[in-house]
């Protein structure tokens, strides 16, 4: 142990190894800054001073000299929407990172287990038969969870433990099945009323988010996020081959089920309020690997921060670029794809 004590005294192993303090501060500060800035964006302009005044007065129950309509826009429209964006962005990014790790494959996104397709089908079906928001949301969550259970069952169809390959293939099967069902619903839906609603909804939007939505969805996504944070170091072990991971003396099936459950809750809840938001869960983990490295212990907290900021910025664009709301999936890919290509040019994919 002599050599180690020398090294330890020279560069304090654990500290030096940690990510730099500047990166850490950025990861904490950026979401806070973007959070406040976001209140100013939108077709209805509100000055930063007014935003601060309104938030301050509402937080402490004071009376301020601002227009009531400004207060209403900030407090009932933008506040829940901003929080929801951050929650969904953080959740989807972390799910993406966790599943990429668990499958040992950087091409995986939260959609891989069929949850998005299942939840999308549940929502589309609900829109077809009713217009109750509550029904749409609960059907989305139920079918999302159901789809993953189906995936897991198929992956064990041959008996014994489900390998990672079987899970991926089963996810492909489930997704294809539910996507076909979504197409079927679109095909039979009334092309003048229901079809546009379904199509627009599936492309993802935060436009209609209310405090009530947040109240239902936040605990579910929050639960998933906490679950993933708890498992963040264990994900390193899960990213190894089956035999390797088992030889580390851990129960990989139990650990996998925890991760899958957390990711499923997050994704299903996200789809239930804002439709299918693509790309966030695929790209943000890659960006975060460049910033903090591959170790999931650092990667997941980084995804929490960067994912929240990314989706919030995208949503700011979505509600202020043109006079109508642009669906989120269009922007996440339209902005995300070139940015990702730019990153690939500079990193050559070396970080993963």
């Amino acid at each position: 142990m002599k050599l180690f004590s020398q090294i330890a005294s020279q560069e304090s192993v654990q500290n030096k190894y940690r990510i730099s303090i500047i990166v850490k501060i950025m990861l904490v500060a950026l979401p806070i800054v973007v959070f406040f800035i976001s209140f100013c964006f939108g077709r209805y302009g509100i000055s930063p001073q007014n935003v601060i005044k309104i938030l301050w007065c509402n937080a402490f129950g004071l009376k301020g000299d601002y227009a009531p309509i400004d207060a209403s826009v900030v407090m009932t429209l933008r506040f829940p929407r901003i929080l929801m964006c951050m929650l969904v962005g953080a959740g989807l990014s972390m799910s993406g990172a966790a599943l990429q790790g668990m499958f040992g494959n950087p091409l995986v996104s939260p959609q891989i287990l069929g949850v998005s397709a299942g939840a999308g089908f549940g929502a589309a079906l609900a829109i077809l038969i009713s217009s109750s928001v509550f029904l749409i949301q609960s059907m989305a969550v139920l079918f999302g969870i159901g789809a993953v259970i189906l995936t897991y069952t198929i992956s064990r169809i041959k008996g014994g433990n489900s390998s990672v390959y079987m899970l991926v293939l089963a996810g492909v099967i489930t997704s294809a099945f539910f996507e076909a069902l979504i197409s079927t619903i679109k095909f039979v839906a009334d092309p003048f009323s229901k079809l546009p609603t379904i199509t627009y909804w599936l492309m993802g939007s935060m436009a209609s988010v209310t405090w009530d939505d947040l109240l239902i969805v936040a605990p579910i996504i929050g639960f998933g996020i906490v679950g993933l944070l708890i498992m963040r170091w264990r994900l390193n072990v899960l990213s190894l081959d089956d035999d390797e991971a088992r030889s580390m003396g851990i129960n990989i099936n139990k650990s996998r089920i925890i991760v899958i459950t957390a990711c499923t809750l997050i994704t299903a809840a996200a789809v239930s309020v804002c439709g299918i938001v693509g790309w966030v869960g695929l790209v943000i983990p890659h960006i975060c690997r460049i910033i903090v490295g591959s170790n999931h212990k650092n990667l997941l907290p980084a995804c929490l921060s960067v994912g929240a900021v990314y989706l919030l910025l995208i949503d700011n664009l979505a509600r202020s670029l043109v006079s109508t709301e642009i669906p989120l999936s269009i922007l996440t890919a339209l902005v995300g794809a070139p940015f990702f290509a730019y990153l690939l040019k500079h990193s050559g994919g070396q970080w993963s």
Partner: protein
Amino acid sequence: MKLVVENGKYGYTVENLLYDDICFSINEGEILTILGPNGVGKTTLLRCITSLLKWHSGQTIIDGIPLTNKNDNIIWKKVGYVPQSSGIKFAYTVIDMVLLGRSSHLKVYATPSKKDYDIAMHALEQVGIVHLWRKRCNEISGGEYQLVLIARALAAQPQLLILDEPESHLDFRNQMLVLSMLEKVVREGRLSCIINTHYPEHAVRLADTALMLGHGRKYIFGLAKDIITKQNLSDFFGVKVKMLPVEYKGRTLSAIVPLELTNSK
């Protein structure tokens, strides 16, 4: 520790058994090498020993305790396993990779503590690559990566190391590097060790005992010098060889020169 395999029987199909009633054992501080041609189930045997696969019948006994379905996790408190390297999926740093070896000592939700870092660094020191600790695993050589995997197994503080062809895919120098480091670690730590290898010379160099597997479920087990003979190599591998003893620094190594295929194969 002492590991005994009693009447082990396994095959991927019932008609086509790989082993039938195989018996061998390894005592504390011993090195056992497993030799045999491709396809006789060397890797499978390691997986059976460690209960990654379940014996059809027979059992593995560790320090007098038979492994069963219920207790098969106890083995990972005592055994460090180094599988054939399967490529690097994520570019973890060397220290992060070695820390994974601490998993069996950590709770599901735990992250490594200062003590775990100490143990991981010590493992790196044991295999002589402590200077690489901050490098990423895709920035180091294949030989160094193999040493990282060995350090990861050592970080679990095992009493028995099991290695699956640790020197395959390595060049001449890196093979020596890995083997000599392995020998040093095992002898210094009074560890037991099971190694699969394709190189009879390496077995002669390292091993106390040897297990040779052949096609048709035949096997022989005994002292390395009794097992690794030109007659057995010819019988099990179908290659006629000449073995030349080489004296170096007080130990007897062996040069094994393949001459020609025998007609039996």
